[in-house]
């Protein structure tokens, strides 16, 4: 807890009371924290190895895929370090596997959004009717063709997004920041120790 509070103060105070040496120290602490955090990737890879290892040892369903996964991981890592990031298997797999699948995994969300929208946008209550109405107008406007033939729709849609939509975001921004401040204070006063990996009551 002491380390947490001291590191907090050393980075927090210089922001409000600028003083050369303290600024320098807080800057270095930020870089140290950034690099320290970056090490968690090793834990990520370790946990992946452990999970796949268990599948392979116990010959669980799909264990062959886990051997394939580890082989893929090894090829990427080794070729990335030994041959460099701009040549060889690393670059090829980046273009043939990572970039297309990254696009597909997020792109699939368009389908889920469509099916969820088609299911939810039904005027079954005043709230749902308002959701439907606003969503309907903005969806119509976002289809470029509508705006080209009915320019008037831009005014209505932009009014909905830039006032009601923006207000919801602003409200949540205010409310989330309050939550973050309260959580921060709870952490600094040792009330939120589990998050740090400590057991209740431990220092």
């Amino acid at each position, binding site marked *: 807890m002491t380390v947490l509070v001291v590191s907090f103060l050393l980075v927090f105070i210089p922001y409000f009371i600028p003083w050369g040496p303290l600024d320098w120290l807080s800057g270095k602490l*930020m870089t140290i924290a950034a690099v320290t955090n*970056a090490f968690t990737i090793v834990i990520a890879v370790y946990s992946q190895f452990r999970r796949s290892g268990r599948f392979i040892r116990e010959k669980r369903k799909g264990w062959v895929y886990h051997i394939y996964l580890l082989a893929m991981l090894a090829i990427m890592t080794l070729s990335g370090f030994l041959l460099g990031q701009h040549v060889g298997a690393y670059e090829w797999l980046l273009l043939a596997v990572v970039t297309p699948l990254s696009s597909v995994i997020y*792109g699939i969300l368009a389908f889920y959004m469509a099916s969820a929208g088609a299911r939810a946008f039904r005027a079954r209550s005043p709230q749902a009717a308002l959701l439907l109405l606003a969503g309907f107008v903005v969806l119509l406007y976002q289809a470029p063709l509508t705006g080209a033939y009915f320019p008037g729709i831009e005014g209505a849609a932009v009014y*909905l997004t830039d006032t009601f939509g923006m207000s919801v975001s602003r409200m949540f921004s205010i409310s989330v920041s309050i939550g973050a401040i309260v959580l921060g204070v709870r952490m600094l006063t040792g009330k939120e120790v589990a998050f740090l990996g400590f057991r209740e009551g431990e220092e």
Partner: protein
Amino acid sequence: MNEFLQFAAVVVGIFISFAMYTTLYGKPNPLRSWAEFSYLGAATGVSIVISLTYIYNTAILGMQAGDWILVFSIIFGLMMLFRMHPDYSHVSRLPLAFTVGTGLALSLRTQIFTSFIIQINATIVKLWTGVPIEFLYRLTIAISVITILTFFLYTMELSGPLLWTSKVGEYLMYIGFGAIFAQTFMGRLGLFVGYMESITTPTWKTPYTLASAAICLIAAVIFDRTGLGEKLSAG
């Protein structure tokens, strides 16, 4: 990379994409598992290479340039790794407390301004500027932010004007949600359209795209009907 390898990367990329799209069929199949595990392996590989390169460029090169204090970043980072061993995970508490402390300071020292004070300040504006449409916008924002905020009061008894404002807030929030849902759909659709555009341009890619789509769809149906999908997939 020579031309053939580039061509192969495009063709394999298109096929593996549709293998992943078979997720939408809703039943397990080996094509999807193959795509999924390819991504997990390759993406994790990329992330470790890039992250360790970042550590090298920032900490090691920094120390080589005489910035010796950065040695703590390596020490703390290595201590952090003890989290992997249950018996020694307590060693990781020091760097953890340090990173959480600095993280808290960084977010608290700025978030209170950008997400709280500045947002409140931006709501406090002169409503009438002589332009009717501006008046409508500013009034709507002011009423919406305030009433929606009252809807999210939990420990105060919502009675009298508070009950009224929270009800209005709830309705206004649903109008906002409708607009936001549409914008979110626009984004996801844009991504899907963008990717489809990239695998149909230039036009020589189109046959490979259509063929991959057909093969993967037929395979997904066959795997489902024959029950092989369940058996051969990772589950």
